[in-house]
């Protein structure tokens, strides 16, 4: 397997924004323990701006690092900007991910979208978030 970048290792060893947000405005949980990773993302929204984001993740080094990075990226953004955060942006911000670990960045994007979707649902507003039907969580063959 390719090695992790130093940025990935930094975020894995000292992840930012770990935890829960009580009375969060949006919570999204994606992934499956059978596949080896589950991400839960909490967001706090104030005036259309994401003022806080926290996460809990069960997963490999890349899963924890992408969770940390996506919560960093989303803080202070308005919702439209947040919806544009792609998995590639998360991976790039981490200095790249090994090919077999790219699905972790997909999971991070999905966790964010799922939390935003939950935010709209909680507000009782039709959600503009397009949730993927099936997680892009395809596995490489051994």
């Amino acid at each position: 397997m390719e090695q992790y970048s130093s940025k990935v290792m930094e975020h894995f060893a000292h992840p930012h924004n770990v935890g829960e947000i009580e009375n969060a405005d949006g919570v999204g949980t994606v992934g499956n323990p059978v596949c080896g990773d589950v991400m839960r993302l909490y967001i706090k929204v104030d005036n259309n701006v994401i003022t806080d984001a926290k996460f809990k993740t069960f997963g490999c080094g890349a899963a924890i690092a992408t969770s940390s990075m996506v919560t960093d990226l989303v803080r202070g953004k308005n919702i439209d900007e947040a919806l544009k955060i792609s998995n590639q942006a998360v991976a790039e911000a981490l200095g790249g991910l090994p090919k077999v670990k790219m699905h972790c960045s997909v999971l991070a994007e999905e966790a964010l979208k799922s939390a935003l979707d939950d935010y709209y649902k909680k507000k009782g507003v039709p959600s503009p978030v397009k949730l993927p039907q099936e997680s892009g969580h395809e596995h490489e063959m051994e």
Partner: protein
Amino acid sequence: MRKVYLDHAATTPAHPKVVEAMMPYFTGKFGNPSSLHDMGREAKDAVEKARGETAALIGARPEEILFTSSGAESNNFALKGLAQAYSQKGKHIIVSQIEHFSILHPAKTLEKSGFAVTYLETDKEGLVDPGDVEKAITKDTILVSVMHANNEIGTIEPIEEIAKITREKGVLFHTDAVASVGWVPVDVKALGVDALSLSGHQFYGPKGAAALFLRKGIRIKPLLEGGIQEDGRRAGTENVPAVVGLGKAAELAAAELPRRATYVSSLRDRLQRGLLEKIDHVVVNGHPTRRLPHNLNVSMWYVEGESMLLFLNMEGVSVSSGSACTSRSLKASHVLVCIGTDAAVANGTLLMTLGTGNTADDIDYVIEKLPPIVQRLREMSPLYEDMIKKEKVR
């Protein structure tokens, strides 16, 4: 920082005496064993001495040892070579589901070329039932391959019992003993097998030298053709230094085996006790008694194996999270799935394999370092959070 290597199932360091024995064959005694001059003769003698030493370790005759490059090659050779040599007799093969991929993948390949393969289940401790082997044998069966000890969970299979059945039925029996040779006594006559794979770097030999034991009189189709080496059954100039190293490692293992096994099993038991005492929601995989002396395979609920491995690595501790190829596939280990481990729990598995270089202090260091890592990851885990919330409701 302390360095603790607990990944001896991945590879062992070469013993200093092994390296010492190998050195002359890189430079001064560099001849090709197939050459007719004195330089060739000298190399040939060294290879034959190593063949005798390797044979002695497993109670075989020297002429029953074929040198190969790796355990994977020995396994491929046995499965494909025996299947093809005996295909006019029948086209059915039996293997267990917990075999190494170097058995399972050749089995799949053979299926594509017209062989039928039965994949036997095991019980929850990883044991193959010899009765299942007997039931699976048909008139068309030519070969059974069940590993001596599993490389991940360490379970030692009832090889003697299976061999009794295959002998009665006139079916060839190969066992992959790569994980066990050098750690538990292996005697091909006592086991009653027709073929057996072993690998030098699993027991303080060098990488690049392994062997296939093939009982006298059994035919095999070569994988590598075009040379007279290994009695025409494996072409290619011998890796003389590595073969010499394998021989030396075999000689050392034969002399030291009981002491090695007692030493590593007492450290393994200390590690197991310490971890079970300090970590809750943890299971030990494999068989409680029929297992390799240096193997500890544990699953920690609610945390993932690779993240534990990386944090342990930062503390100077080298372990494996299941088999390396398994972790690359991003799938729960096929061995743990076969023994019925919940796939989510299987993802939280660490494989720790000890060696003669480990000390009690090393073990205590790991017992000190791992529990806080597990706790830290659990505090980060949504699965753990859900479990705690459920417990509170109760």
